[in-house]
C-alpha cells in the first residue's frame, strides 16, 4: 500500500541545526551531520534541509555542507535556501541531494522552476510556499517569511505546478514550531487545486496531526521540525523518528 512520507524538516543557520517558532527565535539544536546519522539509523522516509538565512543574506545553501550530507545520508534528501540558478541546482544535485526546494526564487523568478524542471525533471523540484493567515485570508510570504507578496495563494500554487514543479511544500508560518496541529484548511485549499503531491509543513505535534493532514487535508507527505528534534512538549532536545510499526498502524485505517 502507498504510504504518505514523513519528512523531518531540518533548519540550518551558520551551519548549525536550529528550530524556530513562527519563523523566529532560532534555537540551536546541534550538529546537522550528526542528525543525518541518526535519521539514517531510524530509516527516515526523506529529509529536507533549509538554510533559513540564505535568502535574507543573498546567499545560497552551502555546497560543501550539502556534499557532506550527500556522503552521509542513506535516505533521499532535499535542500533549499537562496537557490537562484540552474547551475546552482546542478551542483546541489551532483552533491547528492535528490531534490531542491525553491522558495523566494519561485516568487521573484518563477521561470527558474520551468528551466530547472526541464533540465533536471519535475521530480527534483519542490516549490515551497510560506503562508500567513491575516484577517481570515492567506497571504504568501517570501524571503524567509519576512516579505509579504502581492500574490493569490491558489493562483500561485497552480502557477508553480504549471511551470513544472514536482511537489508543493506548503508551510504555515503561524503554526511553525507550535506543535498545535496543521492548518488543514490551508492544506486542503492547495491539494484541491493541484495534481502534484503536496507536502504539509507547520504545526505537527503528533502522528495523529499527520494523519489528519493526509486524510482531511489530502497531503501526500507531511513534514515537521519540532516533533523530530524535541522530546515531548517540554522541548528537551532529542532527535527522534516514529517507529515503522507506529507509522504503518496510524496510516493503515484509511
Amino acid at each position: 500500500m502507498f504510504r504518505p512520507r514523513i519528512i523531518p524538516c531540518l533548519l540550518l543557520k551558520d551551519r548549525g541545526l536550529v528550530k524556530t517558532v513562527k519563523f523566529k527565535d532560532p534555537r540551536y539544536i546541534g550538529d546537522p551531520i550528526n542528525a543525518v546519522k541518526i535519521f539514517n539509523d531510524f530509516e527516515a522516509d526523506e529529509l529536507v534541509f533549509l538554510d533559513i538565512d540564505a535568502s535574507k543574506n543573498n546567499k545560497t545553501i552551502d555546497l560543501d555542507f550539502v556534499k557532506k550530507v550527500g556522503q552521509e545520508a542513506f535516505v533521499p534528501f532535499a535542500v533549499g535556501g537562496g537557490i537562484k540558478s540552474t547551475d546552482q541546482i546542478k551542483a546541489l544535485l551532483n552533491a547528492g541531494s535528490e531534490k531542491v526546494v525553491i522558495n523566494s526564487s519561485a516568487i521573484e523568478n518563477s521561470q527558474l522552476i520551468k528551466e530547472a524542471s526541464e533540465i533536471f525533471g519535475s521530480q527534483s523540484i519542490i516549490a515551497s510556499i510560506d503562508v500567513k493567515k491575516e484577517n481570515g485570508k492567506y497571504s504568501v510570504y517570501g524571503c524567509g517569511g519576512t516579505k509579504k507578496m502581492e500574490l493569490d495563494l491558489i493562483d500561485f500554487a497552480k502557477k508553480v505546478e504549471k511551470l513544472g514543479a514536482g511537489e508543493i511544500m506548503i508551510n504555515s508560518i503561524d503554526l511553525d514550531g507550535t506543535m498545535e496541529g496543521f492548518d488543514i484548511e490551508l492544506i486542503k485549499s492547495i491539494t484541491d487545486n493541484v495534481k502534484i503531491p503536496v507536502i504539509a509543513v507547520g504545526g505537527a505535534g503528533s502522528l495523529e496531526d499527520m494523519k489528519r493532514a493526509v486524510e482531511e487535508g489530502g497531503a501526500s507527505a507531511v513534514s515537521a521540525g519540532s516533533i523530530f528534534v524535541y522530546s515531548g512538549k517540554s522541548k528537551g532536545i532529542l532527535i527522534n523518528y516514529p517507529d515503522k510499526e507506529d507509522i504503518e498502524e496510524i496510516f493503515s485505517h484509511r
Partner: protein
Amino acid sequence: MIAIIDYGMGNLHSVLKAFKRINSDVIISSDINEIKKADKLILPGVGHFKNGMKKLKEKNLIGVLNDMVLKEKKPILGICLGVQLFTKHSEEGDVDGLGWIDAKTVKFKDSKFKIPHMGWNDLNIKKNSVLFDGINNENNFYFVHSYYLDCKDQGDVLATTSYSKEFVSAIQKENIFGVQFHPEKSHSYGLQILKNFASKI
C-alpha cells in the same frame, strides 16, 4: 566489476554510494572501453525518456550496450528511467527505446491520484527471482515516477505495485533486470536487492 553507466541523466552518486556500502567493486563510467570490461551493468536515470535516449545516442553507448546485454548476455539492472529505456517505446516524448523487452512506457492517467507517484510503497512479488532473495511483500521501496511499464509478456513481470492502478514495478527477462523504484534510496531492503544483483546473479 559493475559499471554504472553515466549518460548524464540524474543522480549517479547515490547508486555508487549504495554499492560501495555493500563493498561491491563498482565504477561510474561513460567510457566505452571501460564499460566493456564490466561483468555487470547498471543503467540508472532520472528525467525525461526522450533526453535519456538522446544522451545514450550522443555518447555512442547504444551499440556497446546492445552487444553486452543481447549478445554477451551480461546482467544489467535498470533503475527507474533506466528500466523504462529497456522498453520499445515511451509516451514520454513519443520516442522509441532500446527495445530489449516487449513493453511500452506509459503515463499514469487517473486524475484522482497525485502524479508523480512519489514515496514509499510495497511490492506484490509475482515470480521467484534471486533479485528478491530476502525480500517480501511487506517491504517498502522508494518510488518517484509518472510513467510505468506496460508489459506485453507477463512472463517478464517480477513484481507489481498498487497505486492508482496495479503497475509493473520489477521485471526480468533472462539477464535483463529492472526496477521502477530506487533500491539505492530504499534503506536496508533496497541495499539487499543491490547485494543480490552484485553477488547472486
